[in-house]
């Protein structure tokens, strides 16, 4: 099969033009971003009492998007009071099937407006539109649907027990999955008859506010869902508020510990979903090409801003070189760039501060003598970007192996035996996730019984389903979200008496 030299050149040019993928940008026009956003309290949007605002930034270019009200203690007071009123007068005593109607309506509206939410999520947070479109928004809707279905069946959620709502719930959500984490939090809380004061992360408040707007459109009674935007001080005021019966927090281990101290004084119920340092354990019989894809998804999904990210790779020594060759080749293919481009695989780092933090970890590892391999593709000139990175030559005691980097950085170590793999995987203060890659079923079972992690994935990674409980062990937190186990965190349970 030969062609003339002229045709070869022409064909090669066509191939290059094709494979460069011309920009395919999702339009911004679908979402109307206002210059200023207020707090959502008791069904009304209003400014903070002291008029304070902060700016939310677009990570893709570092530019200001909008001003957002910064709630203080007085605003949290208002929101908690509104939530209490709604709890006692409307929501607590509403039949479950009626509460379900509101949640179903919100889920459907979210599906109807999915593109709008996806685009806003990507603009505000920097994640690729492919992910916000295919993962964040559909999963958020799925959580609303799933929990709507439970609202009138709560008496069956825990055998032998009957559940009542807890009261006013304070929820504090992170910036890595701004909308999805809000859905994870509010769906079970509302389904169980609680009312909510939500404090979304300060770098990504916009989709939470849009969801509050959508809740109003769905007719959710005023005060059932209140949103108080702001930074750490706002969250601290909410977590320590005496009118809050339960706090649910997703975020860093450091802040989680502070919240636990604050809530301990009053016996406020608490669930924490904190950091992680998840390990992929790849055995020499694994399906290598698929393991490579799983490792890539495990650490480069959402720029590695994932609490359950597989940020450590433990590979059996016999296949370490081959696996690393494949991984290095694979990260060259990852398209880092404009998050609104439908072909972007890795988007922008969420904030300048986070970018500096990631850079610090990698620089330190390099200074300590580790080998740092990074994708050589050019990064965009402005905005916050970090190349997909693989770090080898590590012993396990380095910060990059122990601390949560929360970025697109994979720390690689090797192991020889199953027992050593378990010991290394468990040598962490965290315990959120792990992945086992092997073709041997018995080994999957053996490993999953011994890995100390809230979730162990077999030949896959980062799989989520609203019916599956998610949560951590050790310093990754406690309590579960999703499934029947997740419902229990929003109910006061008592035994059924005859």
């Amino acid at each position: 099969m030969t062609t003339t030299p002229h045709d070869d050149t022409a064909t090669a040019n066509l191939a290059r033009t094709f494979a460069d993928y011309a920009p395919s940008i999702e339009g911004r026009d679908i979402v109307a971003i206002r210059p200023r956003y207020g707090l959502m309290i008791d069904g009304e949007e209003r400014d903070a009492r002291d008029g304070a605002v902060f700016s939310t930034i677009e990570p893709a270019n570092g530019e200001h998007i909008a001003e957002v009200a910064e709630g203080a203690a007085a605003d949290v007071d208002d929101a908690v009071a509104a939530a209490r009123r709604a709890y006692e007068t409307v929501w607590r005593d509403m039949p479950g099937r009626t509460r379900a109607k509101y949640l179903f309506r919100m889920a459907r509206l979210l599906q109807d407006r999915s593109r709008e939410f996806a685009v806003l999520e990507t603009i505000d947070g920097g994640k690729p539109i492919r992910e916000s479109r295919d993962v964040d928004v559909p999963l958020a809707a799925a959580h609303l649907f799933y929990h709507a279905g439970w609202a009138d069946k709560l008496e069956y959620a825990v055998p032998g027990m009957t559940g009542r709502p807890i009261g006013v719930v304070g929820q504090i959500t992170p910036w890595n999955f701004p909308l999805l984490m809000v859905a994870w939090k509010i769906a079970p809380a509302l389904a169980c008859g609680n009312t909510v004061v939500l404090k979304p992360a300060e770098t990504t408040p916009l989709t939470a506010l849009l969801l509050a707007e959508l809740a109003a459109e769905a007719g959710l009674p005023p005060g059932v869902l209140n949103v108080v935007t702001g930074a750490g001080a706002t969250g601290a005021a909410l977590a320590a508020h005496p009118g809050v019966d339960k706090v649910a927090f997703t975020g860093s281990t450091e802040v989680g510990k502070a919240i636990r101290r604050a809530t301990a004084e009053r016996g406020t119920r608490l669930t924490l979903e904190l950091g992680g340092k998840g390990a992929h354990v790849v055995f020499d019989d694994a399906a290598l090409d698929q393991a490579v894809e799983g490792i890539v998804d495990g650490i480069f999904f959402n720029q590695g801003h994932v609490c359950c990210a597989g940020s450590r790779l433990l590979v059996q020594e016999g296949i370490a070189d081959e696996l690393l060759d494949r991984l290095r080749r694979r990260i060259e293919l990852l398209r880092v760039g404009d998050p609104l481009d439908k072909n972007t695989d890795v988007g922008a780092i969420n904030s300048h501060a986070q970018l500096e933090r990631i850079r610090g970890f990698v620089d330190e590892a390099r200074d300590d003598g580790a080998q740092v391999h990074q994708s050589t593709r050019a990064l965009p000139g402005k905005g916050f970007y970090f190349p997909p990175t693989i770090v080898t030559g590590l012993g396990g005691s380095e910060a990059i192996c122990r601390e949560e980097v929360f970025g697109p950085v994979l720390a690689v170590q090797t192991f020889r035996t199953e027992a050593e793999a378990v010991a290394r995987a468990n040598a962490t203060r965290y315990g959120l996730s792990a992945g086992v890659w092997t073709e041997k079923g018995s080994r999957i079972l053996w490993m999953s019984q011994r890995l100390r992690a809230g979730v162990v994935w077999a030949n896959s990674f980062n799989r989520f389903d609203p019916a599956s409980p998610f949560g951590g062990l050790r310093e990754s937190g406690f309590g579960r979200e999703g499934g029947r186990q997740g419902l229990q965190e929003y109910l006061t349970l008592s035994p059924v008496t005859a």
Partner: protein
Amino acid sequence: MITASRDSRGIVLEGVAVDTPLRVQPVDALALQERAARLVSRSVKRESKVAGLELSVRCVDLTTLEGADTPGKVRAMCARALRPDPDDLSLHPVAAVCVYGALVAEARDAVAGSPVKVASVAGAFPSGQSHLHERLEEIRRAVDDGAHEVDIVLNRGALLSGRLDVVHDEIAAAKQAVGHAHLKTILETGELGSYEMVRLASMIAMAAGSDVIKTSTGKLPVSATPPVALCMSEAIRDFGEQTGRVVGLKLAGGVRTAKQALGYLALVAETLGTDWLTPDRFRFGASTLLNDLVLQLRFQRTGRYPRPGDLPVD
């Protein structure tokens, strides 16, 4: 003669074609399907789309494999192969025409003097269920009649009953029989039962000397699919790394739309590299695909879709 055995790492082939044992990677079906689905959903727009459409035309093996094929039908198809769009003579011809052995001479005359190759199916296509010497005779005859490329079928019966050496040796014999012509080996993946079997069959076919490995005969309800294409591409990449040899990929059956074609180009480009996006290394075995490619190219050029009947049929 090769020996085939299993060890802890999978199936090892010790063959005549390679110096070292070939390792066949296990395949995880769900992860493979997911990766393939993502690759074929790349958003290909503007100049990349036009380039992909033109490239796809250049990579088509325009095919007719019907009991009702006649010299007239083959001549009409060859005319379309030479001028895919009669209104745009700048559009490059397709890579090859693919016919039954009895019509090779007719096709050869029709495309004489053009860059279009003639490919012939041979070797008891599509089942392969006849005696080896008859199959080899058919292959030799196709080459004698002027076929540049011969598409044979892999012995699925031997593969599924574990006679890997028979599978290998028959392909090796076919490779000898085609001489300087190119050998394209059809795995008929729809009959193999698992992606692991597809990967094993790919490695055997390549080790035995195939120039191209091809998904399907087009005679089954399930032909080329994205996960099968990905599985075979990964095998080609591994084989290249282990032996230094370049093997082509042909997707046949079920590729009917330009959108599918662009998806497959993305899959191949991101698995094997852009070096594979050339008719020397990549083909679509298809008939209806070509008109959709031409239609989409006209739309890109003029902003309007042609009316039904504006495009030639054969």
